[in-house]
């Protein structure tokens, strides 16, 4: 057992960590405080670090000025649908690659994982053309269909499936169970932690997505939350109290949610090191 350093040194270390934690989170604190200030109070020097209004009037105004409730609903719908589809597509492919022997499996694996090398920025122009050909512009399908599977998800699940002992399946094979039955009855129930982690990542990535909806959604009513809160509508530019209220609406629920699921999250990156 190593010994602890003297009390003053421990205090300095604690203060340093606390200081960094405060600095890193100051922008969110400032967003929250500003969203509870009157317009006048937000524009004072020196700035006040306390809220001035203790009601939700900025939020009410922000919800009136831009259809925030609609954006939240749209984004929840899209992000949850993508997550559900990815759970199906990715776990199926991961199972095939982890457990089944078939000719070309290695090539298929390379093709699926190779997409990690292709950043979405590179394909956004032709993808836009394809999605337009399909008639998906201004439809949620444009945000869902191209993202029904992901290299990251397949990789993460495959790693997990490969760690499940084969003996658990062998008894079922001898009993004559089909591979699909084994997948559904044995592999999936054993893989809840990995499926949960993958679902969290996928949901968060699509809740936070900005670039793609910016390109394929022009209809203001169908917009996603991240584009919605960052676009300017007339009279909106300088109303920082309202913009902070809108940002608070998009950010604070996610931060609270994160506090409950952070363990799965951080372990997920440590395993794969692939996704933020």
């Amino acid at each position: 057992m190593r010994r602890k350093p003297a009390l003053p040194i421990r205090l300095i270390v604690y203060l340093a960590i606390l200081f960094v934690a405060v600095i890193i989170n100051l922008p969110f604190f400032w967003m929250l405080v500003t969203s509870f200030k009157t317009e006048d109070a937000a524009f004072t020097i020196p700035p006040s670090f306390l809220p001035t209004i203790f009601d939700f009037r900025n939020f009410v105004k922000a919800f009136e000025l831009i259809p925030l409730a609609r954006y939240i609903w749209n984004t929840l719908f899209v992000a949850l649908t993508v997550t559900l589809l990815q759970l199906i597509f990715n776990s199926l492919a991961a199972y095939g690659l982890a457990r089944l022997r078939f000719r070309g499996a290695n090539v298929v694996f390379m093709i699926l994982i190779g997409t990690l090398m292709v950043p979405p920025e590179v394909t956004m122009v032709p993808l836009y053309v394809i999605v337009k050909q399909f008639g998906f512009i201004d439809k949620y399908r444009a945000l869902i269909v191209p993202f029904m599977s992901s290299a990251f998800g397949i990789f993460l699940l495959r790693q997990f499936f490969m760690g499940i002992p084969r003996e658990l399946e062998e008894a079922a094979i001898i009993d004559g169970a089909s591979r699909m039955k084994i997948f559904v009855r044995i592999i999936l129930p054993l893989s809840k932690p990995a499926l949960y982690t993958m679902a969290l990542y996928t949901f968060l990535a699509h809740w936070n997505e900005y670039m793609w909806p910016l390109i394929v959604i022009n209809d203001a009513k169908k917009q996603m939350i991240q584009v919605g809160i960052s676009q300017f509508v007339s009279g909106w530019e300088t109303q920082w109290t309202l913009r902070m209220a809108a940002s608070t609406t998009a950010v604070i629920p996610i931060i609270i949610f994160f506090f409950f699921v952070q363990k799965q999250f951080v372990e997920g990156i440590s395993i794969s090191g692939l996704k933020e």
Partner: protein
Amino acid sequence: MIRLRRRTREALTGWVTVLPALFVQVIFIYLPLAWAFYVSFFSWNMIRPMRYIGFRNYERLFNSADFWNSMGVTGIYILGTVIPSVIIGLLLAALLNIEWIKGRGVFRTLFYIPVITSMAAAAVIWGWLYEPNFGLVNYFLSIFGINNIKWLSDPSYALLALIIVGVWKRIGYNMVLFLAGLQTIPKTYYEAAEIDGATPWKKFVNITLPLLSPTTLFVFIMQFIASFRVFVSVSVMTSGGPAKSTQVITYYLYENAFKYLKFGYASAIAVVMFAMMVVFTLIQFRLSRRRVHYQ
């Protein structure tokens, strides 16, 4: 019903499991990638028919001052973000790896919050922090006698403003990767060093840093690629301006495609970006094969 041999049945099931994912990725990633190559040889605005022009898009690209400007801006952004975010991430990981500190999990979560929030919201919030007259950043600077920097509308500060946001957003991510790397260093090394009377700093420099070098390389490359792809903060905070001082390569591509509708030219930019990504990835493979293992 024909009874298939077990092997054949297994192979069939195998293909059935991978086909849906394969289908999606081929149609929505590989096909667009191939199409980007193809379209880069045409002049096309989606209204008039495509016109084959050979390598002219590439010629224009490499002779374009705007393209080289965007490469320069991206390069400065990468340099400005990679080094600080890797170093700060490492220092925070080393700090949170100290055993006697209580509440390490809570601090780790607090440091990670910027990573999970969307860049779009972060950019809106930072837009307010950078507000020249009433923003928090200029208020703090005024205490030190620095006054009235127009962060987002002065060409000499706008890129710095984006770099600060980029570093802030990624520190937590790099820290978690380093924390995972630190777990792999055997505790016995430190115990041996302590018997020899090594100071914490000596231990950090002589044990932690060398043993962590594979992780450091990995973090460095991940951060490099992430910085290369910067887009959202530029789009929300500066739109590439003022005076193109923040026009990174992704934003240059985006503007040419969706503002000027130069799809052929934009595809040529995409091809160049892809070629650069491939080079980065190959370098990563080469370096990670050569990396040192201490076992």
